[in-house]
């Protein structure tokens, strides 16, 4: 079974974003970029499936500018066998990414797609679900446990208030939540080997995907800053404010 893993290049989660002074976007100039943490978890799960003899090949795929090659190399250092970059200089929307992945699923005869549940930049949480819908395949989103048995995959999902387990017919799409696993560190020799692993480049047109823009980013603002509040003099005053004014108790 071949596993396709989505890998997105995003701002490093340690780095605070800053909104540009002209409010057109956030400022990413010379900031540290990294693999989206949820993609890293998805990748780790795929690599573990390969190590367990369940998966035969792990293919890392990214949709983005040529800079995303850095994250694809990182994915191969962590265990992906090869990589495909769907190169675009435009902002790829979730639907565009899902359409590209759908084509690759077909071309590569993919048995399981492992994606992060969302990227920490746009926070959309859409690609996995869209891909499942477009391909007519079942989905297990927000996975905290993945067990492949024969032609099925059993996914334990994090839902509001607890966990839900579902059984999906393969091929299926699974998106990783935080608790699925703890990704490994890359080893130096593997980083060197990753430089020689195959990285193919394609684009939307070659895949036969037509890209129609759905969203226009009009502006980006800094969230409103809280202003200091009311000083209360006693516990009684506090309780009455919380009851009568804020109505939270």
């Amino acid at each position, binding site marked *: 079974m071949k596993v396709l893993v989505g890998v997105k290049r995003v701002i*490093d989660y*340690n*780095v*605070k974003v*800053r909104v540009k*002074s002209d409010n057109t976007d956030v400022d990413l*100039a*010379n*900031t*540290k970029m*990294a693999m989206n943490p949820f993609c890293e978890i998805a990748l780790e799960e795929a690599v573990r499936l390969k190590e367990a003899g369940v998966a035969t090949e792990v293919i890392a795929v990214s949709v983005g500018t040529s800079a995303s090659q850095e994250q694809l190399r990182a994915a191969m250092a962590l265990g992906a066998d090869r990589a495909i970059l769907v190169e675009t200089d435009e902002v790829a929307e979730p639907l565009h990414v899902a359409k590209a992945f759908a084509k690759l699923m077909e071309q590569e005869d993919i048995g399981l797609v492992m994606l992060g549940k969302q990227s920490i930049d746009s926070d959309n949480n859409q690609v996995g679900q869209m891909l499942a819908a477009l391909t007519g395949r079942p989905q297990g989103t927000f996975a905290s446990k993945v067990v492949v048995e024969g032609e099925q995959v059993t996914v334990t999902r994090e839902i509001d208030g607890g966990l839900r387990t579902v059984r999906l017919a393969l091929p299926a799409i699974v998106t990783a939540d935080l608790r699925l696993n*703890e*990704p*490994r*560190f*890359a*080893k*130096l*020799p593997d*980083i*060197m080997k990753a430089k020689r692993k195959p990285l193919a480049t394609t684009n939307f047109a070659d895949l036969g995907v037509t890209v129609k823009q759905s969203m226009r980013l009009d502006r980006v603002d800094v969230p409103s800053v809280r202003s200091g509040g009311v000083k209360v003099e006693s516990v009684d005053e506090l309780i009455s404010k919380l009851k009568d004014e804020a109505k939270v108790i």
Partner: protein
Amino acid sequence: MRESMEFDVVIVGAGPSGLSTAIRLKQLNADLNVCVLEKGSEVGAHILSGAVFEPRALNELFPDWQELGAPLTTPVTKDEVYLLKGEQGEREIPHALVPKPMVNDGNYIISVGNLCRWLAEQAEGLGVEVFPGFAAAEILFHEDGSVKGVATGDMGVSASGEQLATYMEGMELHARYTVFSEGCRGHLGKQLIERFNLDQGKDPQHYAIGIKELWQIPADKHQPGLVIHGSGWPLEDASGGFFLYHGDNQQVMVGLIVDLNYKNPWMSPYEEFQRLKHHPLLAQYLTGGERVSYGARAIAKGGWNALPSMTMPGALLVGCDAGTLNVAKIKGTHTAMKSGMIGAEALAQVLADESKAWDSTFAQLFDASWLKEELYQTRNFAPAMHKFGTLLGGAFNFVDQNLFKLPFTLHDTSLDHAQLLPADQAPKIDYPKPDGKLSFDRLSSVYLSNTNHEEDQPCHLVLKDSTIPTGENLTRFAEPAQRYCPAGVYEIIEQDGGPKLQINAQNCLHCKTCDIKDPAQNITWVTPEGTGGPNYPNM
């Protein structure tokens, strides 16, 4: 047994000197197997510098740097030097009276972090293996005592030393030669200097702490290319100086450098810097702006007199790890690069011809270089400042640098960490509260450095004696670490009815000031897990 990898040359630290070494090596011999380890999460993540950059070394390394897209976009257009008289007043020093090394015609205002990002791209293009996120934690030696290489630190070890699920053992990197380019007070460089007595017959190294902020300022206040230096207020007992550079994209770099031989244990370089920004000379540019980034780094400024021997069997010390900064110019990037390039030339020779002696090959090339000449000529600059203070020292330096080359050498044999007065003999300093517009508290500053360390790992600030911080350091010096640390790492808190030292190692900016200034020399900075530390953009 740890796994190992073999290289011709392993370089520790992807700063200007390490990357220049790597690039020059590959330019001289493309077949050499060269790798660079970098503890930051990416190249540039831990780099912090002013900076006004003198392109001399870069011109030699890449004569076509302009076509290659090096990030030197803002030439210095105006150069001002001031002496601040107090909270309000200042006096501009006429251009003609400024010591020559401080004149910046032909130089560029740059981000050295971005220069390193660019240098790393060039190095990788030449086939150098650059490994960010890997800290060299340990030096390896051959049986004959020569340097064999380094080992990276273990990853995935808990605070109490247990192996976590993600545990990954460190790796040995063996090399014919290992180059240490960790920057000022490198923790391996420090061990090498001691082990090989590299500083024998030299003055002790002297240090300063540089604290820097990057600001985005309103367009109407921005004068790209304007360089401002100054000294005086607010530093009263300590020597040092400030800078404010107008870079590109409406950004201004502002910082304060405080010599670490200061005497008053109540002194807080961080708060000196915060109040400095309220001086009208600086506030005129910063008011209405937004602070974008913050960071700090120690500087080795002993210059020629304190420069240790840079070679030892199997290894080389370059850049600020050795101490090649030109303190008169307040510039270390071009000299660090040049030291790496000279090192690479020497390495290429001895790697090609093993009969050549390593020490003398390097020494000959170094002695014939402009780097040696430059450092030698400015040897008296910092000792003069230390000996005579900013004003008289400045006058001395004007005479020495502009009028005559004085034929004698001033020495400063004092130790920076031994200068503190007891707290009860020094005046307390009442620093103003930050206003949240120009000045800020320490933790909101640390926030802007994007620093982070995996929380469950052994503390990387190692105390030789855990009783000293709440013992002698507290009773005699009111534990100065609380004030000299620019990241609020050290706090004395009350717990169980007594004082306790709290080390917030996650906040650490890797500036190394604690390793330098602790009066008992009780704090040893070791590398945390790779990728830990600041994530500076454009610094």
